[in-house]
């Protein structure tokens, strides 16, 4: 019970997505989830053990680590992946609700429960907006918490019980920075995909609506 659950969830969502939506699912699977599991997790695995300060005072390392990493990059990354995948559940719930209604009334109420029209279109658009919103919130959070996306090699710390200003060294700073930039790039790609899907859907259904009204007028 871990990332496999998210994978199954996203596969389920894939059925009811547009073409761009399926590209988004593929990007999230391959460039975010897979990279997280096979690479990123191992880089940050011993971040606390390998954080070294130039002092023998017990407790100084703990306190400095806590000050410079209030919430670890890798935890924020995991939370971002989970929050960004969750809005798609709204669509799954709505389709299940439609299928349930059809079963209850024992008649065909919709052209196809999975087709994006009417109420389901609204739900889909809301899920896209929420996904984009979460992406932006997490990117801003990363930026604000860590003063940009840089990971310094050396930080200076003078919190009690450190007796004076102490040099502390972060492990694998360059590798962490590369993966952080990778995270930002894939986040931005997902934001672009979501925005294009949003515009595509709004454009397609406005044209449909306009054509319907035009044909009605001329009948």
């Amino acid at each position, binding site marked *: *019970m871990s990332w496999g659950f998210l994978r199954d969830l996203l596969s389920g969502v894939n059925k009811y997505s547009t073409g761009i939506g399926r590209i988004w699912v593929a990007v999230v699977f391959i460039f975010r989830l897979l990279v997280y599991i096979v690479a990123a997790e191992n880089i940050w695995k011993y971040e606390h053990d390998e954080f070294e300060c130039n002092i023998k005072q017990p407790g100084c390392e703990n306190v400095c680590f806590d000050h410079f990493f*209030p*919430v670890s990059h890798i935890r924020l990354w995991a939370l971002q992946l989970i929050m960004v995948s969750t809005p798609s559940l709204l669509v799954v719930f709505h389709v299940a609700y439609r299928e349930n209604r059809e079963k209850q009334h024992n008649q065909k109420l919709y052209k196809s429960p999975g087709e994006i029209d009417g109420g389901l279109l609204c739900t889909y658009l809301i899920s896209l907006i929420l996904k984009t919103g979460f992406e932006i919130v997490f990117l801003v959070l990363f930026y604000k918490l860590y003063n940009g996306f840089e990971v310094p090699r050396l930080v200076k710390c003078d919190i009690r019980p450190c007796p004076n200003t102490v040099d502390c060294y972060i492990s694998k700073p360059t590798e962490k920075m590369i993966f952080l930039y990778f995270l930002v790039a894939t986040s931005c790609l997902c934001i672009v995909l979501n925005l294009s899907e949003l515009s595509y859907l709004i454009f397609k259904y406005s044209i449909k609506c306009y054509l319907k009204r035009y044909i009605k007028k001329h009948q």
Partner: protein
Amino acid sequence: MDWGSLQAVLGGVNKHSTSIGKIWLTVLFIFRIMILVVAAERVWGDEQQDFVCNTLQPGCRNVCYDHFFPISHIRLWALQLIFVSTPALLVAMHVAYTRHEKKRRFRNGEKIDIEELKNEKMHIRGPLWWTYTSSIFFRIVFEAVFMYVFYYMYDGYQMPRLVKCNAWPCPNIVDCFVSRPTEKTTFTIFMLAVSGICMMLNLAELCYLVIKICMKASRKTT
């Protein structure tokens, strides 16, 4: 045998739940069990190793750790999730018993479609309503109890950076430093918030079921 088996059991109950019940189950899986497994367990993974005390006295660190963390947050959350998921088993048992009775009647000659029986969604009425409602009630009680246990055991929901310890064999009052206190506080508050949301969902479901049955009863009498 891990959280996956719980998922298998609860997935079966999902079919017979109300919509609010299905949302509760989703929140439980995604925002509690999944967060516990992929994030929280890593944060608390090195809690004893990186618990550092300002003393060379052997045994002092062990004793102080044990004094301030009688049961680790992670273990309490695991217990909370298990206890909160278990009342759903009452519903699963009731459904299994009803199906068993129907199969028995089929064997005694009544005409029942066996395939339909396996996939049939049970409506929440009659005795199943009582089982379902009691399971929600127990869920609410367990959530509240565990929230209180957390509050009582750790004096609130904040993880301190520094604790002062003078349990034997520490020679005097010793400063001990907890590892990752801010990250731990963040996750504690997150899990508390999601517990609260789950409790609200359970209360809403309970009210919905009670109102539904009252309206049905009043319709019958008019």
